């Protein structure tokens, strides 16, 4: 497991509140094939945990016949994380374990019926593959922003100066395949990171690759994240779901793939004051 801690946590820095806005749009290719979305998104927040946000993108691989269920289990497993403080790696472990428990429980009551030899062989080796999905997870407490990522998609942070950067970006794979929470080595494949509250971004963006695939340039998603942060900061009002819905619809139309996003506006004492002053 890869884990990075972005500096010591400053006692004076505290995250005060967060706003979460999400959107999920079925890809144009999926609509044409009369398939539903394979993505899932959800968030929860209670007590010391200001927000836990999860985005999942079920694999298109034909052997992943329960991909949408797997994506839903990502959201459910994220919501079920224990409320006590966790290191990013412990959070990833708990998250993956809970996802596996849900899959195994579902499998026990709903055995797989292979349609072909390839699926049969793959499922004999790893039945959880049928539920294959990526997973992006972000948990925000007063003290830190923690991120776990398994597979493709974007995790982008916008700093107080407006600059956006990709976090925990994996090396691109040459064979078109992706890491998966369904893999036996999901813990090893999980990338995790924590940002202390004192260095917290003003905006976190979690997005499936249906967004990035709609752009001709690599930095377009970074620009979009910066623009969203400016929109929120300049207006002093929450990012509207209709803003994200429209953006997701455009991306899903162009990329053909499902487009799902969660935008998390984060206020510390400094940034909260800045937003309200405008």
């Amino acid at each position, binding site marked *: 497991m890869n884990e990075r801690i972005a500096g010591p946590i400053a006692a004076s820095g505290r995250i005060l509140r967060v706003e979460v806005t999400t959107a999920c749009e079925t890809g144009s290719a999926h609509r044409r094939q009369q398939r539903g979305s394979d993505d899932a998104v959800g968030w929860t927040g209670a007590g010391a945990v200001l927000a836990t946000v999860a985005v999942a993108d079920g694999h298109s691989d034909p052997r992943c016949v329960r991909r949408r269920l797997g994506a839903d289990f990502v959201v459910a497993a994220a919501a079920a994380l224990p409320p006590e403080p966790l290191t990013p790696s412990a959070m990833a472990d708990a998250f993956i374990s809970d996802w596996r428990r849900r899959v195994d429980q579902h499998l026990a009551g709903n055995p797989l019926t292979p349609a072909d030899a390839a699926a049969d062989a793959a499922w004999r*080796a790893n039945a959880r593959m049928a539920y294959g999905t*990526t997973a992006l997870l972000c948990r925000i407490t007063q003290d830190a922003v923690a991120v776990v990522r398994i*597979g493709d998609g974007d995790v982008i942070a916008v700093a107080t100066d407006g600059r956006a950067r990709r976090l925990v970006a994996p090396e691109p794979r040459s064979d*078109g395949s992706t890491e998966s929470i369904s893999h036996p080595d999901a813990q090893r494949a999980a990338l995790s990171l924590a940002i202390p509250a004192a260095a917290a971004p003003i905006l976190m963006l979690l997005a499936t690759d249906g967004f990035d695939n709609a752009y001709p*340039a690599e930095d377009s998603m970074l620009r*979009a994240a910066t623009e969203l942060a400016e929109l929120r900061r300049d207006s002093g009002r929450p990012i509207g779901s209709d*803003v994200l819905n*429209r953006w997701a619809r455009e991306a899903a139309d162009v990329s053909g793939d499902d487009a799902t996003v969660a935008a998390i506006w984060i206020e510390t004492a400094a940034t909260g004051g800045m937003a309200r002053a405008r």
Partner: protein
Amino acid sequence: MTDEVQPLRTLGGPMARRQLHFVWILDVSGSMRADGKIQALNVAISEALPSLRAAAQSNMSADVMVRAVTFSTGAKWHCADPVPVGEFRWQPVEAEGFTDMGAALSLVAEGLRVPPMPERGLSPVLVLVSDGQPTDDFADGLRQLLDTTWGSRAIRLAIAIGRDADLSVLQTFIGHESGQRPVLANDPEAIIAAIRWASTAVAPTFRESGSSLAVAGDDDLFYAPDDSRPL
């Protein structure tokens, strides 16, 4: 009045569908004159265009662009500029000369460099059609092709016309690990069927991965670095 604020344009700038480049690499050497092979090839490509367009339409995430290279004594672009598949029209080719397959692959390598190819896109499809043995340095041409990012990531297919085609060379072009084999076409009907089959390579169903325990994410989208940059 809403409390929400709208951006005036698409966040992040304009969106665009990815390009998928499809390149015919055609043997027009003198031997293709025998047994009506060159006529059959011209007919086959014309008749396969609807199949190519249909396959392209099934790939909603990509704009399919078509080009063609011919080789005989040397190689040249028959259609140099990538043409959207919906606008592509086949101009018949004629046969004469040698079988400079290496020169053709070298020319395709030039055409797959970034730029002019985009950095982002779906892996190209290269279809090599030949009835003979290379008369130049095939290995060097293939090396140049595979040295480009898009060339190495291309789906490479081959059609062997007639019994004199060099299957070993065509298999080397395809790659021994790809699972694909050269398609044999010994008569006009078989040539048409083989060309039509190759046209379906732009469809997502053709391109889906089914390998071992690795799972396909969404498609075979790749990001190619600028090939002109020094390493």
